[in-house]
C-alpha cells in the first residue's frame, strides 16, 4: 500500500519507500487540523504494519505544534504495538544541533517508546 503525501508550508512530506522499508517524515508540522492530517498515516500504519516484518521511521521535522506532537505519539504507539508483536521497528529522529528545543522533543519521544530510537544530530 502506497503512502506519499507531498510537503506544504505547514505540513511535512510523508513518504513510504517499500524497497528500503522506510517511512520518512520531513519538513514542518502545524496543520490546520493535525488529527485530520495524520489520520491517513495512522490508517496506513494500521493496515500495513501487520504485513511488514520491519519498518524504519525517519523523522526530520524542525518544528511541530502541540497537536502534531500528539499525532506523532500515536504513530510511535502504533509502531510500539508492532514491536511488541515481533516486528523489527526502529526510529531515527534527526534534529539540528543549533535547535536545543528539537533535542528536548526528541528525548521526550524517546522516553515514550520501547523500541530502538536513535536521536541523530545534524549540523545546523
Amino acid at each position: 500500500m502506497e503512502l506519499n503525501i507531498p510537503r506544504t508550508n505547514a505540513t511535512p512530506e510523508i513518504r513510504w519507500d517499500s524497497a528500503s522499508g522506510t517511512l520518512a517524515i520531513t519538513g514542518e508540522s502545524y496543520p490546520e487540523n493535525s488529527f485530520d492530517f495524520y489520520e491517513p498515516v495512522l490508517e496506513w500504519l494500521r493496515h500495513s504494519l501487520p504485513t511488514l516484518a520491519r519498518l524504519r521511521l525517519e523523522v526530520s521535522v524542525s518544528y511541530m505544534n502541540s497537536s502534531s506532537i500528539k499525532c506523532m505519539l500515536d504513530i510511535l504507539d502504533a509502531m510500539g504495538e508492532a514491536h511488541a508483536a515481533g516486528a523489527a521497528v526502529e526510529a531515527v529522529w534527526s534534529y539540528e544541533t543549533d535547535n536545543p528545543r528539537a533535542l528536548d522533543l526528541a528525548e521526550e519521544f524517546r522516553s515514550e517508546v520501547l523500541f530502538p530510537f536513535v536521536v541523530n544530530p545534524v549540523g545546523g
Partner: protein
Amino acid sequence: MTPDQLSRIREEITREGVMICFNGTFVHSIIEELGNALRRYLQEQEEQKSAALDVFSVYIEQAQNIRNYLARKKFTDATSASAIIVIARRGERYVVSSGNVVDGEDQAALTAQLEQVRSADAAELRKLFKEKLRSGTRDPAGGAGMGLIEVARRCAEPLQYAFHPVEGGRSFFCLTAVI
C-alpha cells in the same frame, strides 16, 4: 479613517515595537501567512535560531487556540467571531498578545488552566505536558488541549491574562506571553 487617526495608530504601533498586528477572522491560511512574515522578521532580527522558533511556536499555539475555540463556538456576530493578535519586540524580549471573545461559561475552566500553568515551574510544565499528551484530549476542530502548556514552556515570564466583560455575558479574553 482620517489621516490623524492613521498617524496616531502608526505612532502607537511604532512606540510599542509592534512587528505584526492582525485583527480579523482567524482562518488557517491567514495564520500561516502571518507566520511566514513573522519568520522573515525574526530571521533579520534574531541571531538565535531557538529563540526565533520559540516566538514562532508561541504565535502558532496562541493563534491556533483561538481559531479552534472560535471554530467550536461558531459565534455569529462579526465582533465575537474575530480576534486580535499582536507580536512586538520589547528590548531583548518578544511579546505575543492575543485577544478574543469567550463565553461566560468557559471563563472558569480557562482561568483554572491558566493558573495551573502560571504556577508551574519548568519541571512541572514538562510533567503537565506529558500528562496531556497521554490524556487523549481531541476536539474536532483540531485542538489537543496542550497549547497553553506549550506556550508557557517557552515563556520567560508567567503568562498574563485578563477578562474584560462585553455584552451578552461574554468576556474579551486577553493573553500576553513574554518570550
